[in-house]
């Protein structure tokens, strides 16, 4: 088992005829992901690396049985693409696009409340269940099937940490990048619940960063509900206040959202804090066989 995506996941790529969409559709396919369809309005009938292109998500779903989508369309069209995927009642929508207006996301999240579709992102590198499916943009070679679940707000930092987990021989059950924006569809707690219920996952790593209070909320949840060993890393201990550090969500605003507060919350919840990526290897050794 893994969480959210596995060998049965059938992926529809929204924006497949664009540069990024085409590149990553091929890369996911090469990884072994079942990429069944692409969507670009007005380009039905074409194909990208043998993947058929449709005009709409609903048509793609009907023709191929796709149940998950990944979105590569530019920011000004991305919100519409998410609504379309939700309307087609897909199980999972992964939005890689960065730069979606915050208020548009707020409206969308309100709309999603009673819908069955789960949104990951926006501004997410996607997720991977090693050996089963990659629905994202991460380099597949870094990951190996195993027992550690990783949930993170960033991309390359996640690869860095997963690299050490793989090198140490533990491997990963699923690695999820939940996205670096202010408002995101799936948060740490959602992923923690799933990892907790997943028998393949024996330990969980939370990779957080400055901004907001998601890490603090996650810490409280871990303390109350999670019996598996949990490890935490926070990026941005040296970040200055009131400066956006690349990610829209990575900002210490009004003195809130500092790394210090988050690390303290982790410690109080019994989460093992990692101070540098390489440390994860030794720390896992103390808790896992």
């Amino acid at each position, binding site marked *: 088992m893994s969480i959210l995506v596995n060998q049965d996941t059938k992926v529809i790529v929204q924006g497949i005829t664009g540069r990024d969409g085409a590149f990553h559709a091929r890369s996911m396919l090469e990884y072994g992901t079942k990429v069944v369809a692409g969507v670009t309005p007005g380009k039905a009938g074409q194909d990208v690396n043998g993947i058929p292109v449709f005009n709409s998500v609903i048509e793609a779903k009907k023709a191929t049985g796709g149940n998950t989508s990944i979105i590569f369309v530019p920011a000004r069209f991305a919100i519409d693409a998410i609504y379309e995927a939700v309307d087609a009642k897909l199980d999972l929508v992964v939005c890689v696009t960065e730069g979606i*207006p915050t*208020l548009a996301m707020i409206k969308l999240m309100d709309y999603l409340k009673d819908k069955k579709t789960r949104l990951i992102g926006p501004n997410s590198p996607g997720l991977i269940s090693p050996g089963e499916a990659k629905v994202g*943009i991460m380099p597949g070679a870094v990951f190996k099937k195993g027992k550690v679940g990783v949930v993170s707000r960033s*991309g390359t930092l996640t690869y860095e940490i997963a690299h050490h987990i793989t090198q140490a021989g533990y491997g990963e059950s699923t690695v999820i990048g939940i996205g670096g924006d202010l408002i995101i569809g799936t948060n740490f707690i959602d992923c923690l619940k799933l990892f907790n219920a997943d028998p393949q996952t024996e330990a969980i790593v939370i990779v957080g960063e400055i901004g907001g209070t*998601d890490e603090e*909320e996650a810490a409280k949840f871990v303390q109350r509900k999670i019996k598996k060993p949990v490890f935490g890393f926070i990026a941005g201990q040296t970040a200055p206040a009131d400066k956006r*550090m*690349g*990610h829209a969500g*990575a900002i210490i605003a009004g003195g809130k959202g500092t790394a210090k507060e988050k690390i303290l919350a982790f410690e109080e919840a019994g989460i093992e804090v990692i101070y540098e990526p390489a440390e994860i290897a030794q720390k896992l050794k103390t808790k896992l066989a």
Partner: protein
Amino acid sequence: MKIHEYQAKAIFAEYGIPVGKEKVATDPEEAKAIAQELGLPVVIKAQVKVGGRGKAGGIKLVEKIEDVASVANQILQMTIKGIPVKKVLVAQAIPIAQEYYLGITIDRAIRKPVLLASSAGGVDIEEIARTAPQKIIKQPIEPSIGLLPFQTRNIGFKLFADSQIVNEFSAIAQKLYQIFWDKDCSLAEINPLVTIRQSQATSPRLIALDAKIVFDDNGLFLHPELADLQDPTGEEPNELEAKKAGLSYVKLEGNVGCVVNGAGLAMATMDLIKRFGGEPANFLDIGGSSSPEKMITAMKIILSDKNVKAILINIFGGITRCDDVAQGLLAALKESKIAVPIVARLTGTNEAEAHKILNGSQVIPAKDMAEAVQKAVALAK
């Protein structure tokens, strides 16, 4: 995107939020002419997009017309939190009875806008949150419904005894939310919102004495009209240049310059520099796909910071190709002599090619992030 107080006030006026009589000036003589027109006393306010202007001496009350030019000149010579003052707002002084706070922002935890109001205005909301949290009234706003009149009215009744003022407050709060929502703001704030002294009773009785609006950068494409409000003076020039090149750069005080792909890894690299006893000179994320050109710009920006004593390049290649980074680095080295040592850690996509490209150059290789950081920190000392 932040804008100046006078620009935010123009938006307030457009939406019908009462502001005082005031005009912006760029030189002392202009300030004097405005003061003459408005009548004394006036308040002269530095127009810089940072908080704490008052404490820094950037806001002055002037009673006599003969003092206006010299005070304006003095403020125009100032640099507040590193930002030189280029404009001043000359405002008719208002006899204040009491100061309040009113702001609308986004509550990330509940994924909704939230209205904040307080009778403890005039100081930072963070300051109020620390010293008198019980004085902050919070009203979450349902995005599908908006801010309802009963909600703002009820807050008004908590803050004011006079029902005329309650009505004015409610109307101002409604208009502020309208601005927030219409223009994709991250923050719309009136601090202070003031009541005018009874003896001078006029209508309106409530006035926005200050105005702060921050637009969501991601929403700017929806509002082409806001492009005119962008004022590059008073922004870090390197941060602007980086933005143009699709890089994300924040200047810091240390001496180890860093070039990293990805915001999270960039922050983690800064943290590790500190952990190994160094100080990062900057945050720099070259983003997802790294063309060699991006790398050249990145090196240029870093080298323009004279504090930099060593450069650390930390790349975990995914979409970013290590060979692209190496090519860019080599091109940057060809373009100009780089006197400071460069340590590069390039892992992931096409790393073997990258190492070949850099072989024989001045770039010092490192096998992993920890080694790279240690080497760069040692070289910067």
